[in-house]
């Protein structure tokens, strides 16, 4: 006789991963935190690292949490697999309430440890055992799971092949470059067939070139294996290059969050501005400078060109930050139209009709449609 728990509307599917990337706003949440707080007490002083964090990471997406040092990102990702015990709030991963499994005291219960083994984690400083070979490092999680020897080495070699290190199985970590070490770290994180990968500043100790290749690997794994990736970073480029969704953390709170497209659609979004920075000043008086934000369907049409032809005006592009995300062009562009604002009311109206979000510089109070900061 089973009692159905209504709070677990999405039980973990035992079947294979979803290979298609369905990223509707109502996708199944794989990681959910609600009302998460973490307060550190040391010598009578209290430091609040997390202050009521609600996070929803959908299945199959790459979710980036960005913020400065001390914003609470590290505490957040450590609370997701309960390496840090949250002070209050709940963490649900793949339908399982981990906070309920925590057990008494500071030690992890058997159930929690089992749940952890299904969550991969990648670290900034790789955290590979220096006394084990690359292959033995990848086998470690399997040893913990009790996988038999032959099966372990088969799996480890397969994973090393997947991350492009098949030739290095017998090498020791000290013989590898930073990027190779992180690939080993990723292979190790995948050994337990996780649905979820946590990445704690995985590329912050790497040079830009290596960072790109490691991010590309994470992206590929996300697509090939349907792996959900939650990453924390302080580098906007990381979010820009691989994240489907992002959240901005400040002082232990999430101040903005959403898919990249949603963020762009949000007026005054700091994340959108940081992801797609535009600059450039008007080339003279009597010009109208407009920031155009492309998101949604309008992004697929050559709107600027249409504007120019329809109204026969010369448009200068002062600056632009465009990207192709999931096959759509998104980003922002700063354009300049001749004449003052009053003369350009009609073209501006045209752009609005195309579904673009416009910010006319110097006209904010008048034109920002709600939600202005």
């Amino acid at each position, binding site marked *: 006789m089973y009692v159905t728990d209504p709070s677990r509307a999405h039980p973990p599917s035992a079947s294979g991963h979803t290979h298609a990337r369905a990223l509707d706003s109502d996708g199944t949440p794989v990681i959910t935190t609600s009302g998460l707080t973490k307060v550190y007490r040391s010598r009578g002083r209290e430091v609040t690292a997390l202050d009521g964090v609600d996070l929803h990471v959908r299945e199959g997406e790459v979710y980036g949490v960005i913020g400065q040092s001390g914003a609470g990102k590290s505490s957040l990702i450590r609370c997701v697999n309960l390496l840090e015990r949250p002070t209050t709030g709940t963490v649900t991963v793949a339908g399982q309430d981990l906070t309920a499994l925590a057990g008494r005291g500071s030690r992890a219960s058997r159930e929690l440890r089992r749940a952890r083994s299904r969550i991969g984690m990648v670290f900034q400083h790789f*955290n590979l055992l220096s006394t084990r070979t690359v292959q033995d490092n990848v086998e470690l999680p399997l040893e913990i799971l009790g996988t038999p020897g032959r099966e372990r080495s088969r799996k480890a070699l397969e994973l090393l092949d997947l991350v492009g290190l098949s030739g290095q199985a017998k090498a020791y970590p000290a013989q590898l470059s930073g990027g190779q070490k992180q690939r080993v770290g990723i292979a190790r994180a995948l050994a337990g067939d996780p649905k979820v990968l946590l990445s704690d500043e995985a590329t912050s100790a790497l040079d830009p070139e290596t960072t790109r290749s490691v991010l590309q690997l994470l992206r590929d794994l996300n697509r090939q294996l349907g792996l959900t990736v939650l990453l924390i970073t302080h580098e906007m480029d990381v979010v820009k290059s691989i994240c489907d969704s992002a959240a901005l953390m400040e002082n232990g709170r999430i101040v903005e969050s959403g898919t990249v497209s949603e963020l762009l659609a949000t007026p005054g979004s700091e994340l959108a501005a940081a992801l797609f920075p535009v600059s450039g000043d008007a080339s003279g008086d009597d010009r109208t400078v407009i920031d155009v934000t492309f998101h949604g369907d309008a992004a697929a049409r050559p709107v600027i060109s249409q504007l120019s032809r329809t109204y026969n005006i010369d448009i200068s592009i002062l600056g632009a930050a465009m990207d192709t995300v999931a096959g759509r062009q998104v980003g922002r562009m700063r354009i300049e139209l001749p004449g003052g604002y009053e003369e350009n009311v009609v073209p501006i109206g045209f752009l609005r009709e195309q579904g673009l979000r416009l910010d006319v510089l110097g006209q904010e109070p008048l034109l920002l449609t709600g939600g202005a900061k």
Partner: protein
Amino acid sequence: MRPLLEQACWDTFYMVGWSTLIAVAGGLPLGILLVLTDRGGLLRNVVANKVIGQVVNVARSMPFIILMVALMGFTRTITGTTIGREAAIVPLAIGAIPFFARLVETAVREVDHGLVEAVQAMGGNTWTVVRRVLVPESLPSLISSATTTVVALIGYSAMAGTVGAGGLGDIAIRYGYQRFETGLMWITVAVLAVVISVIQFAGDHAARTLHRRGGGSGAVLGLRLLKPRPKPAGTDEPATADVGKAA
């Protein structure tokens, strides 16, 4: 004189060998426990940590000769006697346990906490952390610590002569010093010096070999021995740009 020295050598090896084994068996878990129960450890327990720490401190502050006398009753219950080689092993081992435990504590503390975290994130329990991370990663330091303990035990064992256990130190004191046989005394000291050098060399070699295994570069052994690089275990950083840059 030959048989005398020979017998003394064997007595020393016998006492030091057994007491080292016991000291390692007792000191290793104790040292690890000191790290685990400490603040921020996996088995955080302030009371246990304080108690173990104090016991270790008291035992270490006790001069060996006094420890030997103080433990007489205990020695008798274990070996049935308070004199001879077997009887000397008990105080030697008990004196060396806290000594080795402190060295173990220092060695294990050096292990990067990130590695512990990684194993926890894989679902490993405390025992897994100890067995797969703390001990293997600190092994070179642990071997150095054991070497230091052996050398210290050879020193202590000289005093074991007072309970009639024999050994090299005993020969040097009784025959050499007290009977003014200066020649024999120097020979004994020379033998001790050789024994200790060999042990130290072997220990260093073992530690370095293990360390190198994790430290990469397959440099020729001889070259490394000529140019020893005193580096603590687990701190080897490759020449890539992945150091520093904390989040």
